């Protein structure tokens, strides 16, 4: 049952083949069984079941609210949820219970979606491993798959199950793991430099970063306001389109949104790609790109070409400056956005009370981890009067150049870009933490970041397993507000690649419900 796609589960609910309560109970059980993955920070057992019961009533009356009515979902813990603790995986916000819902959360609830809980992340979404959380790192469910265990055993790499697990990527690693581990049918992530697509790729799920301005950011606790977008994580492209249809649309509470109404769409089952022109950015042949990723990328291009699509090499010359540019822009906005966390009104407050300034300082020192503090300090430095034009202003100009690269390419007749999502498959935790957060972010976000710089929609889909038995993703980037085309092409490729389903290597002493299903239901 949990292996169904969202659309199938929705149909099953509508037809009464399963009740929302049953679905919810199964998901809650699955969360418990996979608790070692550490995908969730907060689980709403009672609240979720209550919602599910209400959904069942509506279904029985034939008054379902929409395709999400009764569907269990998870939300990254940097979206404000009324009455549900929202921590951003930081000591600073531990115990903070917001009085309001983020608009995208509200839209999910309005559609009857069942909120299972809040998922783990890097503190304040700063990271690419989901390892820097006060609640501990998220473990990639594929670490416990037969595929990974068998392959690794063959190469003699695996010794200890508890030491050799791989990271999820991040920062929305909790959401990616939650979807990947069959604990929910869809999850919200956020994507500032790749935070939805990166973990989606590592966890073998679909990760959609919509166009900036299409989804409301109201209630998303910001990392970089000018790049943040709510992200959608699902097990197949079709499901991402369904969730997008629910979430998109103007929200007067977010002034950076487009005014035009959004038309929800369903993806055509057959796509003629022969009229499609697919760009392959040559700069994405980056150092560190794994050989098998290149092979996969080439294979996908060949599939498209064989189906009649035109494949052209394109150039995005300024992409190479993306990382350093992002570093400056991110740090400055972080320094500013984090200023409100002073211990006065909500969240953590230190015991120091001899002066306001001392209280601020101690609260912020105790409340933020090193990564957050480091970015605040560099951002503050970049914004100093004498530095402003050397760093922030320059970075903004470079950002404009990066964005213009895309405009030029799309003007030249290219419809869509095909790129890898990550350099390679997921790294083992013990390897990952050898490098610092910043170095890792610079490496990991290399293919994803520029889409945020330019505000463009991008999607990653799982395309193959690596030699180690871990997922590899491919990314499509489209013109702004061309989500329909983006997802249509992604769905076409999804059909061709026939990505295998995660097969649990028995989670000890427990028969996992997922094991009953050997195939992803989206496969023909």
């Amino acid at each position: 049952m949990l292996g169904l796609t969202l659309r199938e589960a929705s149909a099953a609910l509508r037809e009464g083949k399963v009740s929302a309560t049953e679905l919810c109970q199964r998901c809650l059980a699955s969360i418990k069984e996979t608790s070692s993955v550490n995908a969730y920070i907060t689980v709403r057992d009672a609240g979720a079941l209550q919602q599910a019961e209400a959904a069942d009533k509506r279904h029985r009356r034939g008054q379902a609210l929409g395709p999400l009515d009764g569907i269990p979902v998870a939300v990254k813990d940097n979206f404000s949820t009324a009455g549900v603790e929202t921590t951003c995986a930081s000591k600073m916000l531990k115990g903070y219970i917001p009085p309001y819902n983020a608009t995208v959360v509200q839209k999910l609830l309005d559609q009857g979606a069942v909120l299972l809980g809040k998922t783990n992340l890097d503190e304040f979404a700063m990271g690419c491993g989901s390892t820097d959380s006060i609640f501990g790192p998220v473990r990639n469910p594929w670490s416990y798959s037969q595929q990974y265990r068998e392959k690794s055993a063959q190469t003699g790499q695996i010794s200890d199950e508890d030491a050799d697990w791989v990271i999820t990527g991040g920062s929305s690693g909790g959401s990616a793991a939650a979807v990947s581990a069959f604990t929910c049918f869809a999850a919200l992530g956020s994507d500032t430099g790749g935070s939805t697509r990166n973990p989606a790729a590592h966890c073998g799920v679909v990760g959609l970063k919509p166009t900036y301005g299409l989804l409301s950011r109201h209630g998303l606790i910001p990392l970089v306001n000018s790049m943040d977008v709510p992200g959608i994580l699902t097990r197949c492209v079709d499901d991402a389109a369904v969730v997008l249809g629910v979430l998109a649309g103007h929200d007067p509470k977010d002034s950076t949104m487009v005014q035009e109404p959004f038309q929800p769409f369903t993806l055509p089952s057959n796509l003629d790609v022969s009229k499609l022109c697919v760009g392959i950015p040559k700069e994405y042949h980056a150092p560190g790109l794994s050989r098998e990723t290149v092979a996969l990328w080439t294979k996908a291009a060949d599939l498209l070409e064989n189906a009649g699509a035109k494949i052209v090499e394109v150039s995005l010359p300024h992409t190479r400056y993306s990382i350093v540019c992002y570093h400056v822009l991110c740090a400055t906005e972080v320094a500013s956005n984090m200023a409100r966390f002073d211990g006065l009104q909500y969240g953590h407050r230190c015991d120091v009370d001899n002066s306001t300034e001392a209280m601020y300082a101690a609260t912020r020192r105790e409340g933020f981890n090193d990564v957050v503090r480091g970015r605040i300090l560099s951002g503050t430095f970049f914004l100093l009067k004498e530095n402003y034009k050397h760093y922030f202003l320059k970075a903004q100009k470079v950002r404009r150049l990066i964005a213009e690269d895309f405009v030029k390419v799309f003007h030249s007749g290219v419809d869509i870009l095909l790129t890898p999502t990550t350099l390679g498959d997921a790294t083992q935790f013990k390897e990952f933490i050898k490098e610092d957060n910043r170095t890792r972010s610079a490496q990991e976000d290399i293919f994803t970041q520029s889409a945020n710089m330019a505000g463009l929609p991008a999607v990653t889909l799982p395309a193959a397993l690596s030699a180690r038995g871990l997922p590899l993703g491919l990314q499509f980037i489209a013109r702004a507000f061309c989500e329909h085309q983006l997802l249509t092409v992604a769905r076409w490729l999804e059909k061709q690649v026939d990505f295998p389903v995660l097969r649990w290597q028995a989670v000890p002493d427990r028969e996992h419900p997922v094991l009953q299903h050997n195939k992803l239901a989206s496969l023909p």
Partner: protein
Amino acid sequence: MACSGFSERYLKRLPLFTMGRSRCRVSVPALSLLRRGVQQHAAIASPPQSQPKGADQWVGVVGLEIHAQIYSSSKLFSGARVQFAAPPNSLVSFFDASLPGTLPVLNRRCVEAAVMTGLALNCNINRKSLFDRKHYFYADLPAGYQITQQRLPIAVNGILTYQLQVGKKGDQLATRTARIKQIQLEQDSGKSLHDDNRNQTLIDLNRAGIGLMELVMEPDMCCGEEAAAAVRELQLILQALGTSQANMSEGQLRVDANVSVHRPGEPYGVRAEVKNINSARFLAKAIDYEIKRQTEVLENGGKVLNETRAFDFKLGYTTSMRDKEGKQDYRFMPEPNLPPLILFDAKSLPAHVNPQQVVNIDLIRERLPELPSISRKRLVEQYRILPEHGFTLLNEDGLKDFFQNVVKMTQTDPRKVIGWVINDLLGHLKQGNLAVHQSRISPSSLAELLNLLEKGIISSSAAKQVFEELWKDEGKSATQIVEEKNFGLIQDRKQVEQICQNVIDQHQKEVEGIKKGNKKILNKLIGQVQRETKGRTDPVMVKTILEEKLS
């Protein structure tokens, strides 16, 4: 959106701490410091001898930064209500409290208010303006930054034309102009309430996020009087526009003065910023004090510091608040959650947009009400009164309405009415330190009095006495007073003739003088008759009778 439960929790959670306030409470009088300075530098400070007279005169240079709270029902970026003196933290939206994830949404009314103010002050309205974040940590600034317009404000390059009363009697008007550098939209902060006894600071966020227009004026004024007159004119303009209630005592209009002194022809001196000024009168005092202080410092060879100074209205002088040399870096950056503010005019207005979602400058220009300068001109023309009368009528709150009401209710020439309103009524009000709306004489009772005068029932000197009686506010009408006190003119000509005869009899010396041709002495006799009758005779009748009798 106001969250009362939240505010309650919020107040309870307030910390026990003090703000670094000791610097603001320096109790050493600045004057005593100055005097010490005088002695120390006396030897060095003798001015050069060779300069022509007047060239070494120090002149004040004054620029103003004015924050006007926008008169709107909700805040600049949130839907929370705006209301003076509401219970603490009862008007606070999630955004105003800076809850994580909240976003600003610009209030169209505030934009229109700024545009209208800009137009009224002859500014260029920028078709595109930008919002910025200005960072500093303070307990009543919950986001850690203020959203303002640092790079590209909504209006620039304006002119404020104002008048002030000059001349020995203050009966002449001089016209001055002060350039307005820019008008920017920004958020107000909350309020910190320091409780010294409990070593606590309480925060009230009702004011946090209210829309402000910051008007930056060029240093085109030279003294407190000019600055006060400019502020008063601005206040009248804002009130006429309805863009701000501009009440200084309620903090809706807050003025900071940048004051420096220099010798004409030389570059401007180092300036000090004077804060904490809550009335036009104190503004003038604070500036003049500061000019005097700086002049003395320089005369004595000292240096003026670039600092912020607070005006103590009780003691009448300014004290140093904080040094500005080690300047705070506000780390400005663009506000990423607000797109550029684009304004349209009739020509540039796109065809397909919803008029509710755009601001059309031309429409606002059409809606501009009459400005005070025009109102004054109209009053002068309509009632044929003097320009200084028009000035006073408008500058004294409520006086214009008072005057116009009296005029409506009486047949008396407005030129006579204005004398009563400005000399008698306003004189009495000023003496009692009262506002027009606190007047003990209503427009109708003044009109009744003037009608008695106009109809010849009382003389003008009796009218003054009736006025005094009315001012006592004993609930009697002018007519009642005239009857009770027997102030009415003696209508019986024979009775008047008798009184005149008595006066003639008792003033033979004067009579002789008149007969010799000195007609001026006649006035003395008329006065004498008036005295005898306590002003109850008609001077014209008395004059005729006396002339008849002495011819």
